[in-house]
């Protein structure tokens, strides 16, 4: 219910916001067209009607599942977005895996042995991960690994493979090679974030009584760390990762543009530049839905990790 209100409010803001900026006609029409042709094009796109009427028309169609047609491609906006979604999903997924697989062990180590040289180095490098702009890191990666060393392809999505009914570039070597740089570029900030969160959580937890008690009970160190400690520090990490995953899907605009990755983020930025209003509106509404869904998943993950949180209780 709440979500429905959010989506509705969002649609109003986005629709009117997008409609006050510029005029898509100038982006669409051939410059040699005369006044008559321009007017025909304006009418064909329904841009001659007052904006309130345009919104009602949009709303009526949206309730029937039709979020409008792209001005630029002439195809349903939703279809365009969904067409590009797998490319973005696989990139976001790969980045998330990197964040977890690299971030949690490094963070744990840094939290358990904060004074060691390796931990200090990790923490310093993670500051770079936060502070360097994504586009710069991306371009540097291309320069080093593609142009100078020639190890990796510079841009684009690789060959697609099919595995268990899913088609993705995760399943071919060429695909993985193409994905390595953009995924790492996208993951860099998230890895740093996870390292810092895990380290902070670990340092706090090791001082607590239940950890001391577990050691006192004579449990093996590995069991204390990977069962008792990890389970407790994962809750903030999962909350943040859940939301960050949403960001990875929705706004990987910079990475996708630099690596010419044919995903949703690139579609969004292209649509904004060319004022393809229906696509912008459909995109943002879809993103709101994704975030609402992710929040739900995060809540469920809590309840699995922390027995004190049960879905039923949260109603109260």
């Amino acid at each position, binding site marked *: 219910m709440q979500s429905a209100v959010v989506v509705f409010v969002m649609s109003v803001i986005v629709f009117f916001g997008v409609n006050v*900026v*510029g*005029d*898509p*006609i*100038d*982006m*669409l*029409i*051939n*410059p*040699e*067209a*005369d*006044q*008559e*042709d*321009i007017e*025909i*094009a304006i009418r*064909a*796109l329904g841009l001659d009607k007052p904006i309130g009427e345009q919104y009602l028309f949009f709303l009526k169609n949206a309730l029937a599942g039709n979020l409008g*047609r792209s*001005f*630029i*491609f*002439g*195809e349903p906006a939703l279809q*365009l977005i969904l*067409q*590009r979604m797998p*490319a973005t999903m696989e990139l976001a997924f790969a980045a998330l895996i990197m964040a977890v697989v690299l971030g949690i062990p490094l963070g744990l180590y840094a939290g358990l042995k904060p004074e060691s040289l390796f931990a200090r180095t990790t923490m310093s490098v993670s500051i770079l991960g936060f502070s360097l702009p994504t586009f710069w890191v991306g*371009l540097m990666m*291309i*320069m080093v690994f*593609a*142009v100078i060393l*020639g190890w990796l*392809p*510079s*841009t*684009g*999505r690789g060959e697609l493979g099919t595995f268990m009914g899913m088609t993705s570039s995760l399943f071919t070597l060429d695909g993985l090679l193409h994905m390595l740089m953009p995924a790492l570029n996208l993951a860099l900030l998230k890895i740093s974030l996870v390292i810092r969160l895990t380290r902070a959580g670990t340092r706090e937890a090791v001082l607590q009584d239940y950890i001391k008690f577990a050691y006192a009970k004579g449990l093996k160190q590995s069991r204390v760390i990977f069962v008792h400690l990890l389970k407790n520090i994962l809750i903030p990490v999962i909350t943040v990762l859940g939301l960050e995953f949403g960001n990875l899907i929705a706004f990987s605009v910079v990475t996708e*543009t*630099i*690596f*010419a990755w*044919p*995903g949703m983020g*690139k*579609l969004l930025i*292209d649509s904004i*530049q*060319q*004022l393809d209003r229906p696509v912008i509106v459909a995109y943002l509404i879809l993103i709101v839905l994704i975030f609402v869904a992710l929040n739900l998943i995060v809540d469920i993950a809590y309840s699995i990790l922390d027995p004190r949180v049960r879905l039923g209780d949260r109603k109260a």
Partner: protein
Amino acid sequence: MHRVRMVFAAVVAVLLTSTTPILAKSATIALASEPTSIDPHFHNLSPNNALARHIFDRLVHPDSNQKLTPGLAVSWKPVDSTTWEFKLRKGVKWHDGSPFTADDVVFTFGRAVSVPNSPSGFGTYIKGKTAVKIDDHTVHIKTAKPYPLVPNDISTFSIISKKHGESGKTADYNSGKAAIGTGPYKYKQYVPGDRFVFVRNESYWGDKPQWDELTFKPIKSSPSRVAAMLAGDVDMIAQVPTIDIERLKKEPKLSLSQGVSNRVIYLHLDHDRDNSPFVKANDGSDIKNPLKDLRVRKAISMAINRDAIVERVMEGVAIKAGQLLPAGFFGISSKLKPVSYDPAGAKKLLAEAGLKDGFKLTIHGPNDRYINDAKIAEAIAQMLTRIGIKTEVVTMPRSVYFKRASRGGPNKTPEFSFILVGWGAGSGEASSPLKSLIHTYDKSHGFGASNRGRYSNTAVDKLIEDALATVDDAKRQDMLAKATEIAINDGAIIPLHYQVNTWATRKGLKYDARTDEYTLGMGLVSE
């Protein structure tokens, strides 16, 4: 150890033998802007029109200098004042093997203006013309009034097969089902946002292109495009940024191909309003619009150091302009030369106009439309400030700019007073800019659609209209040249420079640079 080395050598050998021949026969080209469809009539914009040239032919093919050459029509001539006869090429086959006839041409005239959901079609070039089949290989194109540009207009759109076009929707072209042309390449694959793949049409009627397979990849981000070229992932890139040209020239693995384009970058000034919103007196109060004074317009033109713009801002990659189209195009004047830099003369003219202390002006321009557009505006502002016209610069994204420049003011009039714009002559001759930029704004007749300065001169209007009704080439050339001379000498617009486009290719290849800025696989050849 020895064995390991032998295995390694074998692997290398296999890799070399298996990859080298493929590399030699296929080419990958990175584009700066992405075509939005395979349907040749869906969207009348350069990236789409260029892409369509691979699968489809036109009746008349503009060559790399936009000179008209035979395409699917072998010859054309006016048979009376309102009828043009086109003789079609015999023995041409569609990609599915069916023969090409006059029916396809007549059908195309209907479809190219009526594609559902099309953002802008070919109505501009087709309206007022009817195609009539005379026999299987002769078509008459009739116009209501005598009209000389029939072959130019016809050269803008692709001819499609009636058989596939009748039921073919845009989606069927994108999926390849209806993408059956007569062109040098056949459709193989289209992944939106990622790639277009074509294979050579072995039974093409014309010159066979060099590449068995062509892949186009849109890489919008300029640094990434250059990096892809440097990494050797692509064989050619379009639109090399001017800032990288010096560096790429030194790169041993690459070569550059350059050519002047049909695009002139110019300044438009407010000729219309007595109180122009972005022209003020030195103290900020309203003044009578000085841009309406020819002496002031001349002073502005003389204050601009075109050599400096070309050398510094454009890194040498532009040609200074004195009229609407560069040398070699039809309808240009042989008398007009770029105005020379003369700040002292400009100051003198300002003083004569009673503006010894100058005035305040704002120049508006886009920042993502033309090569280095915002930097040019800044340079001009500095040059004008030097002669006393204190000029501020405001630049904005084209999505906002063009609306405001064309109709952002009251009653949908142009909002700005002094703007930086560019014009590419799609028809490849001078009537295109004259008709749209210089002719008096006249909605009912379709003149002056981009006349954002609202320049108006009845003598020029008459010459343009007469030229557009004169079929005789020599007479029309004179009229267009005369109209250009009057308009430019009257300061209708102030031309700055012609853009030069740069493509980068792998060493050993070269690109036949085109004035229409198209990037075509057919133009990429071994040296």
